[in-house]
C-alpha cells in the first residue's frame, strides 16, 4: 500500500508559533517534568542556536539564554492539534494515522486525483502552509521507509518508487533507526542504513535475534506494518486552556483564532459547513458562560468564523477572568461552497454574516428574523418568525432553467385582500355608527374621517374550542383623508375595531 508520511519538524514548537504569532523568532522551550525535574522537550530555532538542547534541564537552558521563555508541554494538546491537521488533509487522502508527536501517515491511494504522488505531496504542503505549518512529505510503500526518509531526507517532497526503498534508505544515518538497535550497529562501526542492509541476514539474525532481523529487513526496504486509519470523532469540539486567566479580550482573541482555525480545517476536511456553534467560556475560579452563534449561511471558512466569534464575544461582560475556551459545532450541513461571479467581492457572503452578527450582538438575537406564514385564520396570528437563512443565489444555466417558478406556491388567495400594515392588537375605533349599524365615520388622532367606500363583510371566526374565541366581520373601508383601512366589527361586543391599513 502506498502511503505518505507528513513530517512536521518540531511540531509542538510550530504549533506554539501559529497560535501566538508574537513568539516567532523568539527563544522559547516546551518543558516536561521528568522524574521531578523540568527538562526541555522541544526548543525553538533561536533557542537551539543559543545552545539549548532537548533533554537539558530548564535551569541549564535558562543559564544559556537568559531571555528564554518556557511553556508546559502537554502531549494531549499536541495530539488534538495533530488530529485536526489530519482531518484538514482529508480532502487529499481518505484516511490518516497519527504518529505522535510530529508526524502522520496518510493513505496515498487517491494520489491519481491530485496529478500523481508528486502532486499530492505538493498539495499537502500548500495546505499545511495555509494553516501555518512547514513540513516534509515522502510517499513510499512502507511505513518505515516513508517516515525515515521524511525525517532525515533533504527534499521537501519525495516519491520513493515501489521496490526502490533500499536505495532511498541507504544514505540515511543510523540515527534514523530511533532505538537501541541503532546503538548496537554503530558499535560495529557502521554509520548508514545502507551498510546495515549490506550485512548478511543470517549473521544479523544470529547475533541480534528477532529485533535485529526486523531492523535489517527495514533497512532493506521491507516493512509490513499495517496502516490503521484514525477514527473520526462524531462531535466537532475544540478546547484551548489559556496559560493564565485572561482579564482582557486580547489573549482570548488568539485562543479563538486557534479554535476557529482548527474547527474550520476539520469542517472543510469533512466537506461540512457549520450552521450553529456554541462557545463556552470557563471562568476562573468558578462559573461559565455560553454564547451561541447561528449562521445565516453555513460556512467552514475559519477567517469568517473567527471574525463572527470576535464580534460576539468582544462585548461580553464577565464577572471573572476566563481560564478556558471551547467551541463546539452543534449543527452542520453539507458545504455546497459558493459560486462567485465576475465582479463579486472575493469574500462572498462574509459581509452578510458580519453585519448579521453585529446586529444580533447589539439588538439581540430575537430582533432579527425572517417572516413565515402560518395556516391560521386569526389575522394577527397568520404570520410567525423564522431564523433568517436565505437560499443561495444560483447562477448560470441552473439558475436560468430551474429558478423561475420554483417558489411562490404557498401564497393563499385570501392574503391578496390583506393590508400591508397590521396591528398586533386591534385598536378600538372611535366610530360614528348609523342607526342601521352602518359605519359612517371614525375619529383617529383627533381628526374625523368620513367613510367614502365600504366593501364587506368578510366573516372570520373560530377558535371556539379555546379560551379566546373570535367572531369578526371584516370590512375594507376608505376613510376620507386617510386611505383604505381594514376594520372589523367584533361579534362579541358589537364594536368596531381598526386592524390594519392598506398602506
Amino acid at each position, binding site marked *: 500500500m502506498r502511503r505518505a508520511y507528513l513530517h512536521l519538524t518540531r511540531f509542538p514548537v510550530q504549533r506554539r508559533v501559529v497560535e501566538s504569532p508574537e513568539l516567532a523568532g523568539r527563544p522559547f522551550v516546551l518543558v516536561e517534568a521528568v522524574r521531578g525535574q523540568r527538562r526541555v522537550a522541544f526548543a525553538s530555532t533561536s533557542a537551539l542556536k543559543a545552545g539549548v538542547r532537548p533533554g537539558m534541564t530548564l535551569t541549564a537552558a535558562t543559564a544559556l539564554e537568559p531571555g528564554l521563555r518556557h511553556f508546559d508541554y502537554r502531549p494531549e494538546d499536541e495530539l488534538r492539534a495533530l488530529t485536526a491537521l489530519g482531518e484538514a488533509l482529508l480532502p487529499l487522502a481518505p484516511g490518516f494515522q497519527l504518529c505522535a508527536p510530529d508526524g502522520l501517515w496518510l493513505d496515498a491511494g487517491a494520489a491519481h486525483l491530485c496529478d500523481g504522488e508528486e502532486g499530492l505531496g505538493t498539495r499537502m504542503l500548500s495546505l499545511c502552509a495555509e494553516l501555518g505549518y512547514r513540513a516534509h512529505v515522502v510517499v513510499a510503500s512502507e511505513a518505515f521507509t516513508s517516515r525515515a526518509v521524511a525525517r532525515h531526507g533533504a527534499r521537501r517532497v519525495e516519491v520513493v518508487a515501489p521496490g526502490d526503498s533500499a536505495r532511498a534508505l541507504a544514505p540515511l544515518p543510523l540515527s534514523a533507526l530511533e532505538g537501541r538497535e541503532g546503538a548496537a550497529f554503530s558499535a560495529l562501526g557502521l554509520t548508514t542504513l545502507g551498510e546495515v542492509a549490506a550485512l548478511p541476514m543470517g549473521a544479523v539474525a544470529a547475533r541480534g535475534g528477532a529485533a535485529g532481523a526486523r531492523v535489517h529487513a527495514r533497512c532493506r526496504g521491507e516493512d509490513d506494518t499495517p496502516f490503521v486509519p484514525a477514527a473520526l470523532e462524531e462531535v466537532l469540539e475544540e478546547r484551548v486552556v489559556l496559560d493564565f486567566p485572561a482579564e482582557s479580550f486580547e489573549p482570548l482573541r488568539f485562543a479563538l483564532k486557534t479554535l476557529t482555525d482548527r474547527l474550520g480545517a476539520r469542517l472543510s476536511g469533512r466537506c461540512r459547513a457549520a450552521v450553529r456553534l456554541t462557545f463556552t467560556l470557563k471562568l476562573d475560579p468558578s462559573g461559565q458562560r455560553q454564547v451561541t452563534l447561528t449562521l445565516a449561511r453555513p460556512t467552514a471558512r475559519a477567517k469568517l468564523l473567527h471574525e463572527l466569534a470576535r464580534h460576539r464575544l468582544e462585548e461580553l461582560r464577565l464577572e471573572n477572568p476566563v481560564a478556558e475556551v471551547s467551541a463546539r459545532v452543534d449543527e452542520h450541513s453539507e458545504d455546497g461552497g459558493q459560486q462567485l461571479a*465576475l*465582479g*463579486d*467581492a472575493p469574500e462572498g457572503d462574509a*459581509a*452578510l454574516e*458580519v*453585519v448579521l452578527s453585529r*446586529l444580533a450582538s*447589539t*439588538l*439581540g438575537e430575537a*430582533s*432579527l*428574523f*425572517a*417572516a413565515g*406564514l402560518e395556516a391560521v385564520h386569526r389575522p394577527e396570528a397568520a*404570520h410567525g418568525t423564522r431564523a433568517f437563512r*436565505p*437560499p443561495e*443565489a444560483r447562477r448560470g444555466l441552473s439558475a436560468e432553467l430551474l429558478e423561475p417558478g420554483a417558489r*411562490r406556491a*404557498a401564497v393563499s388567495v385570501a*392574503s*391578496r385582500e*390583506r*393590508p*400591508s*400594515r*397590521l*396591528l398586533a392588537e386591534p*385598536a378600538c375605533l372611535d366610530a360614528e355608527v348609523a*342607526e*342601521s*349599524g*352602518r359605519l359612517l365615520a371614525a375619529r*383617529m388622532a383627533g381628526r374625523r374621517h368620513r367613510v367614502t*367606500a*365600504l*366593501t*364587506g*363583510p368578510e366573516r372570520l371566526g373560530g377558535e371556539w374550542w379555546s*379560551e379566546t*374565541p373570535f*367572531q369578526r*366581520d371584516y370590512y*375594507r373601508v*376608505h376613510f376620507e383623508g*386617510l*386611505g*383604505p383601512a381594514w376594520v372589523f366589527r367584533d*361579534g*362579541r361586543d*358589537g364594536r368596531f375595531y*381598526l386592524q*390594519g*391599513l*392598506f*398602506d
Partner: protein
Amino acid sequence: MSAAEQRVGAGQGTGSVVEQLRERIRQLQAAPRRYLAVLRTGLSAVDALLPTGGLPLGQVVELCGEAASGRTSLALHAVAAAHQEARLCAWVDGPRELYSPSAAALGVDLERLLIVRPQAPEQRVWAAVQLARSGAFACVVLDLTRGVNPDGRACRVALAEARKLADAAARGGGLLLLLTSPESPADGVVRLRTEARDGDGWSVEVVRSRQGGTGARAELPWSALYPALGLEGGGRLLDVAEDSEDGTPDFLRDQSGALRNGLGILGQRPGRDAPMPPMRQGLDAALPAH
C-alpha cells in the same frame, strides 16, 4: 528590422490589452456590487416618473405620505423586484406592523427578507446604516413612521444621521428606502410623495430629485397596489339579509344576543362566539324544580 519592430509592437499591443482587462477586472472587483443600476417597482407609471427609470441604487429614496397612502406597498413592490433578481433585502420595522402575508401576496420572497425590529427607536437608523453599508442587501427599507397605532411616535432623523444614511447607501451600493410621514420628513436625495385620493385611486408625486423630474405626478388606481381591494365606486356590500333596505346586514343593526334568544349571531349554539355559560348555573336552576 521592421519585422522585429512589428513583433515588439504586437507584443506591446497584447500586453496592453491584457493590462486593460486586468484593470477592468480590478475595477469590477473594487466597485460595490451593482448589477442593477436601478430597481424597477413594477408599476410602469411610477417608474416613468423617475428620471432614471426606477429607484436609483446607491441612494437614499424617501417615500413620504399619510398613514394609508400606499408607501408600504410601493416599498414592498421594490423589494419584490429585488427578490426577482435573487437578491436579499432588509426591512427595519420600527412600528412593528409589517404584515407578511400581504407582503408575500405582493411577490416578496419571505426567505430573502430580513426583518429587523429594534427595541429602542434610536436604534432604527443605526441598524439601517449597518445593513446598507454592508452591501449584502440590494434594498434596505427603513420605516420611520409612527404606524397605525395612534399613540406611536414618529422618528425624526437628525442631519448627521441623514448624512450617515446617504453615505452608507453609497458605500453599500444598495437602495435605501425611507418611509416617512409629512409631519417628520427625512432628508432623502429623492423624495416621492404618495397620497390617497378616494376609493378609486392614489397618486405619486416627485417632490425632490437632483436629476430633475420634480413635480411629475401620476395617478393610479388602488388595484395597481392591491388587486383585490374592491373599493371602486363606493365599494360593494355583501347582501346578507334580504329584508334590509340599506343593504346593511341585520346582525349589524341589533345586538345579536337579544334578537336570537341568547344564541350566537348566526343562531348557532352558544360557545361559537362566546364562552359557554357555566354548567353549575343551569343545574342550580333546575334542581329546586324537581
